[in-house]
C-alpha cells in the first residue's frame, strides 16, 4: 500500500474513545461512516449524544460512498507541529462527502500539488494503513477514469 503521509511523529487517533470507535472500526474495513439522525435524516459530525438539529437520540452510523468535494483547504509551509517535522509541507483539507452533506472530514489532500488544489475539487478517499489497528483516511483528486 502506498505511503502518502508520514504519520510517524504523531499524534495518532485515540481508539479507546468509545464515542468514535465506530469510525475507526470503519476505516479498518475501508469504510467512511458518519452518524445520521433517523428522525430528521441529517448527518452530523463530530459525534453528538443527541442529534444537534432535532435533538433526537435515534442516531445510527451509516457508511457513505467515498466521493467528496473540497470545502476548504490550506497548504502548511511552516513548522507548526509534528506532521511538518516528519515530512515538510502538506495540504490539509476539509472535505464534504457527496452523500453526507454538512459533515466535514478533516484530512490530507494527497497526490495533488498545492497550485492544483481548489475549493469544489472532486476527491476520493484512499486509506493509509498505519498498523493493524489504525487506517487513516486521506483524499486524492478524482482525475479522469484512466488514472
Amino acid at each position, binding site marked *: 500500500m502506498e505511503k502518502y503521509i508520514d504519520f510517524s511523529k504523531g499524534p495518532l487517533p485515540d481508539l479507546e474513545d468509545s464515542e468514535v470507535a465506530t469510525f475507526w472500526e470503519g476505516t479498518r474495513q475501508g469504510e467512511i461512516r458518519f452518524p445520521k439522525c433517523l428522525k430528521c435524516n441529517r448527518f452530523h459530525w463530530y459525534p453528538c449524544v443527541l442529534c444537534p438539529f432535532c435533538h433526537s437520540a435515534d442516531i445510527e452510523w451509516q457508511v457513505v460512498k467515498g466521493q467528496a468535494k473540497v470545502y476548504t483547504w490550506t497548504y502548511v509551509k511552516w513548522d507548526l507541529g509534528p506532521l511538518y517535522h516528519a515530512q515538510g509541507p502538506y495540504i*490539509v483539507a476539509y472535505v464534504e462527502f457527496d452523500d453526507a452533506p454538512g459533515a466535514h472530514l478533516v484530512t490530507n489532500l494527497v497526490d495533488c500539488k498545492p497550485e492544483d488544489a481548489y475549493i469544489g475539487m472532486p476527491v476520493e478517499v484512499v486509506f493509509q494503513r498505519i498498523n493493524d489497528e489504525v487506517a487513516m483516511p486521506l483524499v486524492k483528486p478524482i482525475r479522469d477514469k484512466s488514472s
Partner: protein
Amino acid sequence: MESLRDKIAIVGIGETEYSRQASERGVKALMIEAVQKALDDANISPQEVNGIISQGISLNLLSASELAYNLGIPHRYSANVSGSGAGSMGTPLAAAMAISTGQADVVVAHFGLDFATQRRKSFTYREHGSNIKLSFEMPYGLYGPSCQYPAKAQRYMYEYGLTRDQMARALGTIAVNQRRNAILNGHAVMKKPLTLEDYLNSPIVADPMRLPDYCLMNDGACAFVMTSAERAKKCPHVPVYVMGVGFGGFQMTNADSETQLGDNFLKQPAERQALDKALQMAGISREDLDFAEIYDSFTIMLLLFIEALGFCKQGEGGKFVESGAISLEGSLPVNTHGGHLSHAMITGATHVVEAVKQLRGEAGACQIKNAKIGLVAGGSGAIDGASTILRRG
C-alpha cells in the same frame, strides 16, 4: 430587572512587560505583579478586594484562591466567565452583577498568558481540551486556529470572489495598521515597522496566510479593577463606566469549533448577538462608538469580526479596512494599541486595558481625540462572544 448600565466603573489598570522570550520569573509572578499595579493605580489595597473574576486560560495559570493567598485578598466571590476570549471581553458583566447585588465591593480581573514558555514544550495546548481534535484534526497537521484560520481565509476568497492579491491586500492592510499603532504606543512587543510591501514579501505560513497575519506568542499579564460608580468617584483617575455588556452564543461543541460550522463558517455568529445586547443595554447605536478594540488572533479573524459586528457588509471587510476606516484617523479606529498581532496577546484583556487608557486620555501617541465611548469585542467567534461598551466619566 433594573439595568446595570453605569453601575460600575473600571478604576485601575496594570500591565507587566510583554515578551516573546519565556519569562524567567514565571507567569504566576507576572500575574501577581499586574494585579498589584492595577490596585496601586486605583489606590485600593488588596485587603479591600473581595471579588476575583477571570477567564479559563488565565485561571488555569493562577487560580483566584492562589491570587488571594499571595496578596492577602479576603475574597468571597469568584467567577470564571468563559474559557475563550469572551471571558476577557465580558468580565465587567460578572463584576457588575456581583457589585450590584452586594456580593462584592471591589472586583479584580486578572489575566496572563505563557505562550512564550509553552511553545518551548509541546504543541498539545492547541487541542483546546478536545479529544476529538486530537484524534481527527491534529494527526493531519490541523493544529488549532493557526491552521483553521488560513482555511477560513481560503474559503473567504471563494465565497466572496476575491483574488489572492485582493485577499493579501485586505489582510496586509490590517497587519500594517496595527504595527503602526504598536510602534506608536511604545510598549508593544513588535518594534520593527511593517509596510504593505514588507507584508507581501513575508513568508507564507499556511496558505494564504503569512507570518504577519498571526498573533504574538508572548508571556505577560494584565489586570483591571472594578468598583461601584459611587466609590469610583473617590479613585484617583477619571472613572471609566461600564455602559453595556452582552454575550452571544452558538450551538456547537468545542470539538466542532471552527471546522463544523456549516453555513456559519465565515459568520462568527456569536459576536453579532453579543454586540446587539451590549448596545441595547447601553442605549446607544454603532455610530456612537469612537473606537473599537476587537479580538484579533489573526488578521482574517479581525476581518470576520468587523463584518459580524455589522460595521460593514459580509464580504466587504477588505474594502472597509482599505478605505482607512480602522486607522487612528479613520471613522472607527480599531486596535489602537496594535492588538494581538503587534502589541501583545493576553486573550483580549489588553484590549480592555487599552480602551481604558483611551477613555482616560492616557493613550499617548495612539490617543483618539475626544474619545468618549469605546467598544471591546471578541471571543472564540464561533461558540461564544462578548461585547463591552465603556464610557469616559
